[in-house]
């Protein structure tokens, strides 16, 4: 009883103090004069690694733009307001509400997971505030006909494999394919798109299984897959699952002509670190690589590595390019209103480190940039672009040697 006596008043004090702090924070941010852009990213939680990389990239791009004098719009400075969504969708909703209603931002950006991006997009559209999605790749986001929702640097999940199929038709010519994917929105959408493309070409799907994201033992699944005898595997996984899968394939001595990852995990530096030499010859589709031919891509990679001591991947590039798109659109806007910025975004035509970005309406998508995808392969510990051929940084290896031949 004694210890609770002081604790209750102490708690009440903390509570009131916290409320006071938040109250002050709100009033000061309202008085500040500037063009406010709200950015919602997962800074904590299981996606924090990516969220932090994107936040860093936003800030890096902002500093560069500031040095070039491109962050003032009509005499006002662009301000970035970051909010943490913790990777939870109701928190993303709270962040959206706060940025729009409390901080009075002129537009929103960010959105890492599909779920959070969905919620931000829906709320932004309902409150007619322009929202430029960075990473969320669910098809739905730009398929609802929402005029205030834009997606530039991220491809819809079903379109991640464009370059791969070009290569498959000319080089790989797969016959029997195994498809595995994590049972998330991204995994299922990607796999669905891939399977539809298989059907169009008459490629047999001999194995098709979703697995639980974050699983540890893939051997039963891999053993079943081996008995189906595929000549190619297509896998959609985040980084830790990806590393586990290829490591366990090596342990089982299970080889195929080609192992293709569907974006996300298979291109990340952490994948190489965790999978070790099992990562060799693993191929993946991706939206961006540092050695791609677009101007500024290599510099971004080097600068980021120097500044933060870590290698960025395509998520960081998405955020970096998005910041340039935002600054460009705000610079062109006639009037700083939601409709004015919406129009300016719609008229975007800019070259970024992720290639040219334009917001177009096509195949049922609204305000969706037509994505450019690449096929990359790990060769001697480096991620090399192997397709499209005009931007390749190394020759492809196909079929890849079996584990024993290496």
């Amino acid at each position, binding site marked *: 009883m004694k210890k609770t006596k002081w604790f209750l008043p102490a*708690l009440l004090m903390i509570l009131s103090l*916290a409320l006071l702090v938040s109250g002050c924070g709100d009033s000061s941010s309202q008085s500040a004069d500037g063009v406010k852009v709200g950015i919602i990213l997962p*800074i904590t939680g299981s996606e924090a690694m990516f969220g932090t990389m994107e936040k860093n990239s936003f800030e890096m791009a902002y500093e560069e733009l500031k040095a070039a004098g491109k962050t003032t719009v009509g005499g006002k400075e662009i301000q970035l307001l970051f909010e943490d969504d913790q990777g939870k969708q109701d928190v993303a909703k709270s962040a959206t509400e706060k940025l729009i209603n409390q901080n009075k931002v002129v537009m929103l950006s960010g959105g890492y997971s599909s779920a959070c991006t969905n919620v931000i997009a829906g709320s932004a559209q309902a409150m007619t505030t322009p929202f430029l999605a960075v990473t969320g790749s669910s098809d739905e986001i730009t398929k609802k006909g929402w005029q205030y929702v834009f997606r530039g640097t991220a491809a819809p999940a079903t379109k991640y494999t464009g370059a791969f199929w070009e290569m498959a038709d000319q080089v790989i010519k797969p016959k029997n394919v195994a498809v595995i994917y994590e049972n*998330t929105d991204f995994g299922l959408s990607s796999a669905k798109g891939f399977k539809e493309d298989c059907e169009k070409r008459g490629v047999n799907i001999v194995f098709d299984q979703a697995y639980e994201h974050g699983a540890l033992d893939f051997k039963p699944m891999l053993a079943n897959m081996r008995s189906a005898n595929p000549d190619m595997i297509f896998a959609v996984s985040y980084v830790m699952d990806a590393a586990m899968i290829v490591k366990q394939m090596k342990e089982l001595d299970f080889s195929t002509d080609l192992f293709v990852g569907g974006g996300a995990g298979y291109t990340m530096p952490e994948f190489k670190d965790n999978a070790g030499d099992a990562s060799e010859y693993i191929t993946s589709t991706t939206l961006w690589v540092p050695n791609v031919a677009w101007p500024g891509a290599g510099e971004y990679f080097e600068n980021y590595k120097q500044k933060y001591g870590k290698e960025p991947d395509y998520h960081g590039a998405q955020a970096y390019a998005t910041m340039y798109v935002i600054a460009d659109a705000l610079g062109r806007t006639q009037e700083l209103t939601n409709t004015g910025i919406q129009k300016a975004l719609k008229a975007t035509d800019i070259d970024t480190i992720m290639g040219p970005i334009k917001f177009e309406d096509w195949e049922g998508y609204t305000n969706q940039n037509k994505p450019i995808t690449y096929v990359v392969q790990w060769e001697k510990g480096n991620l090399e672009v192997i397709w499209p051929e005009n931007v390749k940084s190394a020759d492809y290896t196909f079929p890849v040697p079996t584990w024993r031949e290496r």
Partner: protein
Amino acid sequence: MKNFNLALKILLVVIAVILPLVIKAPYQLHIIILIFIWAIIGTSWNLLGGYTGQVSFGHAAFFGVGAYAAGLLQFHLGVSPWWGMLLGPFAAMVISLPIGLIAFRLRGPYFALAMLALGEIFRLLFINLAFTNGAKGILIMPEITSKMFYYYVGLSALALTIGITYLIVHSKIGFYLVSIREDQDAATSLGIPTTLYKNLALLPSAFFTGLAGALYMNYVAFIDPNIVFNLSNISVMAIMVVMLGGVATTWGPTVGAAIYIILGEVFRTTLGSANVLVFGVLVCLIILFLPNGIVGELDMLRGFLARKKEGAAGGVKI
């Protein structure tokens, strides 16, 4: 004292009703709406876990089914998801029936474990079924965007939940439920059909959790299985809200929900990337030092003071 309590309650209701007319800021209303949703879930959990002593680790199953009842109506039939506010609670009740009938015959941790499994089963089921649109979830554009509307819907749903829970707890059934929690053997020996009454606590608990789920779908406008059937973010959070506020108290879950949501939001917006850590530490401290929850400790404190006063007046009452 009684008049004072009544006046306090009336004042509280009046404040709750006129609040959105005073606070017009949508962000603050949004926070209050979230508090309402969590208060409903907490109050429902409390009826089963707090009063009856049947701890459930799977209230996400009821929450998710309620949410999906609303979402699927829109997704498959194009019916307004608001009808889900009617369908969702009943759907949640239907799935609670078999689990209660089976698990409540057993003693010990079986019900808690069965509920834990139920939540996970539903999550996996809804991810893999085509009927539920799998892991892609259901995204809708809400027809009504006025925060005030959601505020009053949330307030009415919470009032209904607290009202009915209060009636149950303060009726004969309520005493049966508490007796089951305190000593099941003694309750049986007095002729209380324990399995039946445990089920009678589970049904309204599932019903109102389903109601909260349907409201959530209508308000947030996007759900997927990993969100609404989430173990840590829904099932465990339901328990946390009750523990924080006060187990087996009328207002505990509401107070707990308010503290949880407000503190979480304040920390998130002011503390940067340390916010989850600080929040977690604070919750640990509360549970360590206020094991009966905030409302529970307040009651004890009041009782302590009252006893002191009576003591001072001369007569010692036992």
